[in-house]
């Protein structure tokens, strides 16, 4: 079975641009979460979506937005990129939402570099 997939794997942007990252969850998983991992730190929670609705939001500015599609895939959008947005962006899926489905299956991530 395919795991979580993310595209693109690497991306280079300049300050002020916007970016769209994509994630396809494991088949049958309805929940998708997004994380930002800066080098040398643990992943920081950005969003969680379940059944196309936002179910959780981390402490990120409004420049960050996301959505989930009917097939449960998801997009993360970041506007007005800053140098500090350079990081590994991880997508994670799980079968459902709530404490019964806590194991997160992470994708390989998208490495974003902002110049």
């Amino acid at each position: 079975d395919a795991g979580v997939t993310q595209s693109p794997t690497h991306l280079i942007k300049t300050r002020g641009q916007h970016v769209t990252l994509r994630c396809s969850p494991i088949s049958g998983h309805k929940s998708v979460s997004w994380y930002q991992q800066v080098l040398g730190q643990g992943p920081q929670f950005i969003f969680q979506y379940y059944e196309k609705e936002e179910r959780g939001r981390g402490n990120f500015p409004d420049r960050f937005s996301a959505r989930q599609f009917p097939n449960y895939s998801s997009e993360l959008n970041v506007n007005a990129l800053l140098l500090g947005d350079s990081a590994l962006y991880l997508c994670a899926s799980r079968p459902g939402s709530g404490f019964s489905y806590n194991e997160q299956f992470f994708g390989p991530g998208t490495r974003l570099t902002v110049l």
Partner: protein
Amino acid sequence: GQQVMQIPQYQHVQEGEDFTTYCNSSTTLSNIQWYKQRPGGHPVFLIQLVKSGEVKKQKRLTFQFGEAKKNSSLHITATQTTDVGTYFCASMEYGNKLVFGAGTILRVKS
């Protein structure tokens, strides 16, 4: 929101030695999860603990959740080169937010 602190930040051991990483919180945790991230890779779920005083084992790995549910530990017996990576603790808090510690980097000398 809650924070989970992890120590040590970094540990370099000789192959065959034991390794322990600790996770602490100032607030009571509803659960604790452990993940392993290999260099250049992504986090991989190892285990979840939810009960006070819970101890779980996976081969050479032993996971503990403190009686007060404010701390946890991961102990690896007789490390191998395949154990290299960063070990993170994390806790799911209200709002479906998974809060990660900063991680402990493990290096193993063969």
